[in-house]
């Protein structure tokens, strides 16, 4: 019982790291511009397919493709932000939702056209394949790797936001956009970089998730619900909140699948609805 509990906690934590990477960018950009970007998982898909093409079709080593996944997703998100999204910052929630859902549908069809609808996978290096056995509990190497990367990126993000000039601008813009503009901060520019960073991190998350959940063009829609739950529960514009929400969601999803398989995803949705009714602004939300 204890061993399985440790295993569930470990697997859930690794899954939570993945969810954190996928959703942290959305949380911060939503907090800054109030822009509901439902196409965030499409950026993750861009990164995932970048890794897949480089690794499976051009023979790159898996680890070398990860930075490229980040770059590809970041570039695509900058292009979309500059050309399309910025026209909609003043539109209603509903318009933003519909517009970005449209982008999701287009991205699904485009990837289905180029990569077919088959489930794809990538080869990871040998040292990521095995597992460690400690006291009857199995710790898969790949999940340890996920946790290490997730924690390293969280630490880097916290440093970036708390200690740098850019981070101070982002925090100011999240807290009070008009005031930040009044102080001479170029919020649009800061937002563009934040958006690219968030898109890139999602791309990295997408690339890392291939090994765990596989990859097909419906990825952009399948993980959207999870990402939205993390954002809504964690609170807008909060890195710590997203981290906590992602870990809670990852662990409760794993625990639900392990202990109550007949409930399906019921438990997750119940937790989300209850948390939202209790705190509509999210666990750590300020506004």
């Amino acid at each position, binding site marked *: 019982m204890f061993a399985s509990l440790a295993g569930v906690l470990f697997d859930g934590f690794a899954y939570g790291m993945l969810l954190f990477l996928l959703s942290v960018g959305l949380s911060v950009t939503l907090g800054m511009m109030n822009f509901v970007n439902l196409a965030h998982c499409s950026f993750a898909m861009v990164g995932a397919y970048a890794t897949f093409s480089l690794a499976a079709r051009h023979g790159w080593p898996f680890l070398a493709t990860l930075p490229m996944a980040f770059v590809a997703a970041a570039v695509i998100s900058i292009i979309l932000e500059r050309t399309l999204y910025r026209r909609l910052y003043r539109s209603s929630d509903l318009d933003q939702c519909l517009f970005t859902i449209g982008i999701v549908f287009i991205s699904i*069809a485009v990837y289905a056209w180029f990569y077919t609808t088959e489930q794809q996978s990538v080869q990871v290096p040998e040292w990521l394949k095995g597992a460690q056995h400690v006291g009857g509990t199995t710790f898969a190497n790949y999940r340890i790797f996920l946790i290490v990367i997730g924690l390293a990126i969280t630490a880097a993000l916290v440093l970036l936001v708390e200690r740098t000039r850019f981070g101070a601008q982002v925090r100011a813009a999240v807290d009070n956009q008009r005031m930040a503009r009044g102080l001479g901060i170029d919020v649009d520019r800061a937002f563009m970089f934040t958006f690219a960073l968030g898109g890139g991190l999602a791309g990295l998350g997408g690339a890392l998730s291939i090994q765990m959940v596989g990859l097909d063009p419906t990825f952009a829609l399948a993980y959207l619900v999870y990402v939205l739950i993390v954002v809504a529960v964690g609170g807008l514009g909060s890195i710590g909140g997203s981290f906590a929400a992602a870990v809670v969601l990852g662990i409760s999803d794993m625990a639900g699948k392990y202990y109550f398989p007949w409930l*399906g995803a019921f438990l997750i949705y119940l937790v989300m609805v209850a948390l939202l009714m209790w705190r509509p602004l999210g666990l750590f939300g300020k506004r």
Partner: protein
Amino acid sequence: MENAKFRTLEYVFWACLLLPFVVTPAYLSLASQIAVTSLFALSLDLILGYAGIVSLGHAAFFGVGAYTAGLIAKHYWTEPLSGLLIAGLCSGIVGYALSHIVVRFRHLALIMLTMGFGLLLAEAANSASDLTGGADGLQGFHVPGVLGFKFDMFGRAAYAYALAVLFVSFLVARRVIHSPFGLALRGIRENAVRMPAIGAPSLAHLRKAYTIAAVMAGIAGAVLTHTTSTVSLETLSFGRSADVLVILILGGAGRLYGGIVGAIIYMVARDQFSGVNPQYWYFWIGLLLVAVVMFLPNGILGGLSALRKKPQ
């Protein structure tokens, strides 16, 4: 306030809906699907277009209605009109219960909560497979017909039934919209803070509108059950909630005919395109959504009425 009387164009429009009987008899089953979807979109229009409640989980009520009608037909009797009323009543009760929670929230929390309730119901129906048939859907019943007209393979009675229910519900919705209550709803949509300040019981109005919309969505679900004699989990799915939202926005929210026009265009286009390749249907619907938001913020009907007003 707009004129509440029927205009000539509206008579023509409803007369045109009778055309499938003579012009395209081969497509009558598609036509009855369109009528059902129109009714569903109309019910969403009441809360989204008129009361300003954005919902990503409206299929919950459609599904409750569909399953209620299916269970009655399977276990008790197959007379559709009474099943229709009971289905509407059941989804109305669910809607009234949820309305107490839903109307208090706005923005992202509202979208997430409506979506969450929709997903919860879908999961519950999936788990309770003894009652609902689970992923296989509810099968093993047959609704023979309505008022002596048989539901046959040509689908004449089915379309007549769906169209009649749509028309009656439309009249009810029209009456609601043109009443002082409808005016108050639009006031709440435009300014949720000022309406209570001038003495309108804002939350009570929203609850009422939400319940009416739930009843209508449930009736739409029941009509689908009666005309197809099956209920699938898809009636509760997130996809159906998203589809109906797209349909309403495409046609034009906040206009009574928006949902019907949107449903006709969307369903006919899907029928034609997905015959070629279902995968790429999503590309066109995505492009359509992007274009509507960018260039036609009030949907097709909004664009048309702007065109008509310009010359003056």
